[in-house]
Protein backbone atom coordinates (compact mmCIF):
# COMPACT_ATOMS: atom_id res chain seq x y z
CA UNK A 1 0.00 0.00 0.00
CA UNK A 2 1.07 3.59 -0.59
CA UNK A 3 1.41 6.12 2.16
CA UNK A 4 2.89 9.60 2.54
CA UNK A 5 5.79 10.37 4.86
CA UNK A 6 7.00 13.75 6.11
CA UNK A 7 10.32 13.91 7.95
CA UNK A 8 10.89 17.06 9.98
CA UNK A 9 13.99 19.09 10.72
CA UNK A 10 17.24 17.11 10.79
CA UNK A 11 15.44 13.88 9.81
CA UNK A 12 15.06 15.25 6.28
CA UNK A 13 18.44 13.66 5.54
CA UNK A 14 16.61 10.28 5.54
CA UNK A 15 14.03 11.59 3.05
CA UNK A 16 13.27 9.75 -0.18
CA UNK A 17 12.20 13.07 -1.70
CA UNK A 18 14.54 15.01 -3.93
CA UNK A 19 13.45 18.10 -1.99
CA UNK A 20 14.79 17.64 1.47
CA UNK A 21 11.97 17.74 4.01
CA UNK A 22 9.12 17.65 1.49
CA UNK A 23 6.55 14.85 1.94
CA UNK A 24 7.15 11.77 -0.21
CA UNK A 25 5.18 8.63 -1.09
CA UNK A 26 6.42 5.18 -0.23
CA UNK A 27 5.11 1.63 -0.80
CA UNK A 28 4.92 -0.46 2.39
CA UNK A 29 3.51 -3.92 3.16
CA UNK A 30 0.18 -4.33 4.98
CA UNK A 31 0.72 -4.65 8.72
CA UNK A 32 3.56 -2.11 8.86
CA UNK A 33 3.73 -0.16 12.13
CA UNK A 34 5.24 3.28 12.62
CA UNK A 35 8.25 1.60 14.28
CA UNK A 36 8.67 -0.68 11.23
CA UNK A 37 8.58 2.41 8.99
CA UNK A 38 11.23 4.13 11.11
CA UNK A 39 13.44 1.02 10.76
CA UNK A 40 12.73 0.85 7.02
CA UNK A 41 13.88 4.46 6.58
CA UNK A 42 17.00 3.66 8.65
CA UNK A 43 16.23 6.43 11.15
CA UNK A 44 18.01 5.87 14.49
CA UNK A 45 15.44 5.07 17.20
CA UNK A 46 16.54 7.89 19.50
CA UNK A 47 15.97 10.44 16.72
CA UNK A 48 12.33 9.56 16.05
CA UNK A 49 10.17 9.59 19.13
CA UNK A 50 7.26 11.84 18.23
CA UNK A 51 5.13 10.57 15.38
CA UNK A 52 1.92 11.82 13.81
CA UNK A 53 -0.59 10.13 11.56
CA UNK A 54 -2.85 12.50 9.64
CA UNK A 55 -1.99 15.27 12.10
CA UNK A 56 -2.67 13.31 15.31
CA UNK A 57 0.09 11.85 17.51
CA UNK A 58 0.20 8.06 17.47
CA UNK A 59 2.44 5.56 19.30
CA UNK A 60 5.17 3.50 17.54
CA UNK A 61 2.96 0.38 17.46
CA UNK A 62 0.26 2.17 15.40
CA UNK A 63 -0.70 0.06 12.39
CA UNK A 64 -0.37 2.23 9.26
CA UNK A 65 -3.38 2.26 6.89
CA UNK A 66 -3.47 2.99 3.15
CA UNK A 67 -3.19 6.72 2.33
CA UNK A 68 -2.07 7.64 5.86
CA UNK A 69 0.34 10.55 6.14
CA UNK A 70 2.99 9.84 8.75
CA UNK A 71 5.07 12.70 10.23
CA UNK A 72 8.23 11.94 12.21
CA UNK A 73 9.98 14.49 14.45
CA UNK A 74 13.48 14.47 15.94
CA UNK A 75 14.60 16.33 19.05
CA UNK A 76 16.08 19.74 18.17
CA UNK A 77 18.88 20.79 20.48
CA UNK A 78 20.29 24.08 19.15
CA UNK A 79 19.77 27.54 20.55
Amino acid at each position, binding site marked *: MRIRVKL*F*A*TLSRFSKSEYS*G*APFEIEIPEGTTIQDLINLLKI*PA*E*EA*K*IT*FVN*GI*TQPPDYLIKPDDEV*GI*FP*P*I*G*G*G
Partner: protein
Amino acid sequence: MLNPEQKERYSRNIKLHGFGEFGQEKLLASKVLIAGAGGLGSPAIFYLTAVGVGELTIIDPDVVISSNLQRQIIHSTADIQRLKVISAKEKVKALNPDVHVTALAERLDESNIRRLVNTHDFIVDCTDNPATKFLINDVCVEQKKPFSHAGVVSMTGQIMTYIPGHACLRCAFEEPRAGTALTANDIGVLGAVAGTLGSLQAAEAVKYLAGCAELLIDSFLFLDVAHATWKKAKVKRDRYCLACGEKANRIR
Protein backbone atom coordinates in the same frame (compact mmCIF):
# COMPACT_ATOMS: atom_id res chain seq x y z
CA MET B 1 1.36 48.89 43.79
CA LEU B 2 2.23 50.30 40.38
CA ASN B 3 3.32 53.93 40.25
CA PRO B 4 1.86 56.26 37.56
CA GLU B 5 4.87 55.78 35.23
CA GLN B 6 4.49 52.01 35.47
CA LYS B 7 0.75 52.19 34.80
CA GLU B 8 1.57 54.07 31.60
CA ARG B 9 4.59 51.94 30.57
CA TYR B 10 2.74 48.65 31.06
CA SER B 11 -0.72 49.84 29.97
CA ARG B 12 -0.83 47.43 27.00
CA ASN B 13 0.03 44.49 29.26
CA ILE B 14 -2.58 45.54 31.81
CA LYS B 15 -5.32 45.68 29.18
CA LEU B 16 -4.72 42.05 28.17
CA HIS B 17 -7.56 39.69 29.09
CA GLY B 18 -6.87 38.12 32.49
CA PHE B 19 -3.70 40.19 33.06
CA GLY B 20 -4.59 43.47 34.78
CA GLU B 21 -2.53 45.47 37.27
CA PHE B 22 -2.33 42.39 39.47
CA GLY B 23 -0.66 40.43 36.66
CA GLN B 24 1.85 43.25 36.19
CA GLU B 25 2.58 43.37 39.92
CA LYS B 26 3.25 39.62 39.85
CA LEU B 27 5.65 40.03 36.92
CA LEU B 28 7.54 42.84 38.66
CA ALA B 29 7.91 40.61 41.72
CA SER B 30 9.20 37.63 39.67
CA LYS B 31 12.69 36.23 39.12
CA VAL B 32 13.47 34.55 35.81
CA LEU B 33 16.62 32.65 34.90
CA ILE B 34 17.58 32.82 31.22
CA ALA B 35 20.14 30.19 30.29
CA GLY B 36 21.90 31.31 27.12
CA ALA B 37 22.15 34.76 25.51
CA GLY B 38 22.26 33.58 21.89
CA GLY B 39 19.67 33.02 19.16
CA LEU B 40 16.80 32.03 21.48
CA GLY B 41 18.05 34.11 24.39
CA SER B 42 18.23 37.41 22.48
CA PRO B 43 14.48 37.82 21.89
CA ALA B 44 13.60 36.11 25.19
CA ILE B 45 15.74 38.63 27.10
CA PHE B 46 14.38 41.59 25.14
CA TYR B 47 10.72 40.65 25.62
CA LEU B 48 11.04 39.65 29.28
CA THR B 49 12.77 42.98 29.88
CA ALA B 50 10.19 45.01 27.98
CA VAL B 51 7.25 43.26 29.65
CA GLY B 52 8.63 44.13 33.10
CA VAL B 53 9.88 40.99 34.83
CA GLY B 54 11.42 42.36 38.04
CA GLU B 55 14.61 40.29 38.14
CA LEU B 56 16.44 38.58 35.31
CA THR B 57 19.49 36.40 35.71
CA ILE B 58 21.33 35.76 32.44
CA ILE B 59 23.95 33.02 32.33
CA ASP B 60 26.27 32.38 29.37
CA PRO B 61 30.04 31.78 29.34
CA ASP B 62 30.70 32.93 25.77
CA VAL B 63 31.90 36.10 24.09
CA VAL B 64 30.21 37.53 21.01
CA ILE B 65 31.74 36.47 17.69
CA SER B 66 30.97 37.75 14.23
CA SER B 67 28.99 34.64 13.12
CA ASN B 68 26.56 35.15 16.03
CA LEU B 69 25.28 38.45 14.70
CA GLN B 70 22.97 37.14 11.93
CA ARG B 71 20.59 35.89 14.65
CA GLN B 72 21.69 37.01 18.13
CA ILE B 73 20.02 40.39 17.88
CA ILE B 74 20.71 41.57 21.43
CA HIS B 75 24.38 41.97 20.46
CA SER B 76 25.80 44.45 17.98
CA THR B 77 28.95 44.66 15.88
CA ALA B 78 30.65 46.76 18.55
CA ASP B 79 30.11 43.89 21.04
CA ILE B 80 32.38 41.42 19.20
CA GLN B 81 34.80 39.80 21.68
CA ARG B 82 32.78 41.14 24.65
CA LEU B 83 31.01 38.78 27.06
CA LYS B 84 27.46 38.08 25.89
CA VAL B 85 26.03 38.57 29.37
CA ILE B 86 27.61 42.02 29.72
CA SER B 87 26.38 43.05 26.27
CA ALA B 88 22.88 41.76 27.11
CA LYS B 89 22.83 43.45 30.50
CA GLU B 90 23.55 46.83 28.89
CA LYS B 91 20.64 46.40 26.47
CA VAL B 92 18.30 45.41 29.32
CA LYS B 93 19.24 48.44 31.40
CA ALA B 94 18.75 50.77 28.44
CA LEU B 95 15.33 49.28 27.64
CA ASN B 96 13.75 49.09 31.08
CA PRO B 97 15.17 50.53 34.32
CA ASP B 98 12.55 48.58 36.34
CA VAL B 99 14.40 45.33 35.61
CA HIS B 100 17.24 44.23 37.85
CA VAL B 101 19.75 42.10 35.92
CA THR B 102 22.37 39.70 37.19
CA ALA B 103 24.94 38.71 34.55
CA LEU B 104 26.78 35.41 35.11
CA ALA B 105 29.65 34.74 32.71
CA GLU B 106 29.76 31.02 33.45
CA ARG B 107 28.49 27.74 32.06
CA LEU B 108 25.29 26.33 33.55
CA ASP B 109 26.32 22.92 34.84
CA GLU B 110 26.13 20.52 37.79
CA SER B 111 28.15 22.94 39.95
CA ASN B 112 25.67 25.82 39.87
CA ILE B 113 22.35 24.70 38.41
CA ARG B 114 20.57 23.60 41.59
CA ARG B 115 21.26 26.86 43.39
CA LEU B 116 20.18 28.90 40.37
CA VAL B 117 17.01 26.94 39.62
CA ASN B 118 16.05 27.00 43.29
CA THR B 119 16.27 30.80 43.54
CA HIS B 120 14.16 31.63 40.45
CA ASP B 121 10.43 31.40 39.72
CA PHE B 122 10.73 30.34 36.07
CA ILE B 123 13.59 29.09 33.91
CA VAL B 124 13.93 29.80 30.19
CA ASP B 125 16.14 27.27 28.43
CA CYS B 126 17.86 29.11 25.59
CA THR B 127 20.97 26.90 25.62
CA ASP B 128 22.49 25.48 22.46
CA ASN B 129 23.16 21.82 23.28
CA PRO B 130 21.08 18.76 24.21
CA ALA B 131 23.17 17.86 27.28
CA THR B 132 22.41 21.17 29.01
CA LYS B 133 18.76 21.04 27.90
CA PHE B 134 18.30 17.64 29.56
CA LEU B 135 20.20 18.82 32.66
CA ILE B 136 17.80 21.79 32.96
CA ASN B 137 14.83 19.42 32.50
CA ASP B 138 16.03 16.98 35.15
CA VAL B 139 16.84 19.63 37.76
CA CYS B 140 13.57 21.53 37.16
CA VAL B 141 11.61 18.26 37.55
CA GLU B 142 13.59 17.45 40.71
CA GLN B 143 12.97 20.91 42.20
CA LYS B 144 9.39 21.21 40.88
CA LYS B 145 10.20 24.38 38.91
CA PRO B 146 8.44 25.42 35.71
CA PHE B 147 10.54 26.02 32.62
CA SER B 148 10.29 26.71 28.91
CA HIS B 149 12.21 24.42 26.56
CA ALA B 150 13.00 25.32 22.98
CA GLY B 151 15.42 24.14 20.33
CA VAL B 152 16.20 25.49 16.90
CA VAL B 153 18.31 24.41 13.93
CA SER B 154 18.19 25.16 10.21
CA MET B 155 14.64 26.47 9.50
CA THR B 156 12.96 24.34 12.18
CA GLY B 157 12.29 24.59 15.87
CA GLN B 158 10.39 23.03 18.74
CA ILE B 159 9.01 24.40 22.00
CA MET B 160 7.28 23.02 25.10
CA THR B 161 6.51 24.25 28.59
CA TYR B 162 6.94 22.15 31.71
CA ILE B 163 5.07 22.68 34.93
CA PRO B 164 5.21 20.17 37.79
CA GLY B 165 2.84 17.24 37.38
CA HIS B 166 2.86 17.43 33.58
CA ALA B 167 4.95 15.81 30.83
CA CYS B 168 8.63 16.76 30.78
CA LEU B 169 11.18 16.85 27.96
CA ARG B 170 12.33 13.31 28.77
CA CYS B 171 8.73 11.99 28.42
CA ALA B 172 8.94 13.03 24.76
CA PHE B 173 12.56 12.52 23.80
CA GLU B 174 15.54 10.44 24.78
CA GLU B 175 18.76 12.33 25.37
CA PRO B 176 20.81 12.08 22.17
CA ARG B 177 24.27 10.61 22.51
CA ALA B 178 26.90 13.36 22.78
CA GLY B 179 27.95 14.65 19.38
CA THR B 180 25.10 13.01 17.41
CA ALA B 181 22.76 16.00 17.12
CA LEU B 182 23.22 18.27 14.11
CA THR B 183 23.82 21.90 15.12
CA ALA B 184 23.84 25.35 13.57
CA ASN B 185 27.57 24.79 12.98
CA ASP B 186 26.71 21.85 10.70
CA ILE B 187 23.56 22.95 8.84
CA GLY B 188 23.03 26.61 9.74
CA VAL B 189 20.13 28.34 11.45
CA LEU B 190 17.85 31.13 10.27
CA GLY B 191 17.78 34.07 12.69
CA ALA B 192 14.06 34.71 12.32
CA VAL B 193 13.30 31.09 13.32
CA ALA B 194 15.37 31.40 16.50
CA GLY B 195 13.67 34.77 17.07
CA THR B 196 10.19 33.25 16.74
CA LEU B 197 10.93 30.45 19.20
CA GLY B 198 12.68 32.71 21.72
CA SER B 199 9.74 35.14 21.57
CA LEU B 200 7.31 32.29 22.26
CA GLN B 201 9.43 31.25 25.23
CA ALA B 202 9.10 34.76 26.65
CA ALA B 203 5.32 34.58 26.12
CA GLU B 204 5.15 31.24 27.98
CA ALA B 205 7.08 32.72 30.92
CA VAL B 206 4.80 35.77 31.03
CA LYS B 207 1.61 33.68 30.92
CA TYR B 208 2.87 31.49 33.76
CA LEU B 209 4.08 34.37 35.95
CA ALA B 210 1.07 36.64 35.40
CA GLY B 211 -1.29 33.67 35.76
CA CYS B 212 -3.21 34.26 32.55
CA ALA B 213 -4.04 32.26 29.40
CA GLU B 214 -3.16 28.66 28.50
CA LEU B 215 0.33 27.20 28.63
CA LEU B 216 1.97 24.89 26.09
CA ILE B 217 1.97 21.95 28.50
CA ASP B 218 1.70 18.23 27.67
CA SER B 219 2.44 19.13 24.08
CA PHE B 220 5.14 20.21 21.68
CA LEU B 221 4.83 22.83 19.01
CA PHE B 222 7.00 22.21 15.95
CA LEU B 223 7.75 24.95 13.48
CA ASP B 224 8.99 24.14 9.99
CA VAL B 225 9.57 27.46 8.25
CA ALA B 226 11.09 25.74 5.21
CA HIS B 227 7.62 24.32 4.46
CA ALA B 228 5.61 27.04 6.26
CA THR B 229 3.93 24.62 8.69
CA TRP B 230 3.22 24.43 12.41
CA LYS B 231 2.32 21.19 14.15
CA LYS B 232 1.19 20.71 17.72
CA ALA B 233 1.78 17.24 19.13
CA LYS B 234 0.25 16.00 22.35
CA VAL B 235 2.77 14.41 24.70
CA LYS B 236 1.57 12.08 27.43
CA ARG B 237 3.38 11.95 30.71
CA ASP B 238 5.42 8.73 30.64
CA ARG B 239 4.92 6.83 33.89
CA TYR B 240 8.31 5.17 33.35
CA CYS B 241 10.06 8.48 32.53
CA LEU B 242 13.58 8.54 33.96
CA ALA B 243 13.09 12.13 35.16
CA CYS B 244 9.44 12.45 36.24
CA GLY B 245 8.06 8.88 36.28
CA GLU B 246 6.64 7.29 39.42
CA LYS B 247 9.82 5.31 39.99
CA ALA B 248 12.24 7.79 38.50
CA ASN B 249 15.71 6.76 39.50
CA ARG B 250 17.47 10.04 39.97
CA ILE B 251 19.69 10.21 36.93
CA ARG B 252 21.75 13.12 38.19
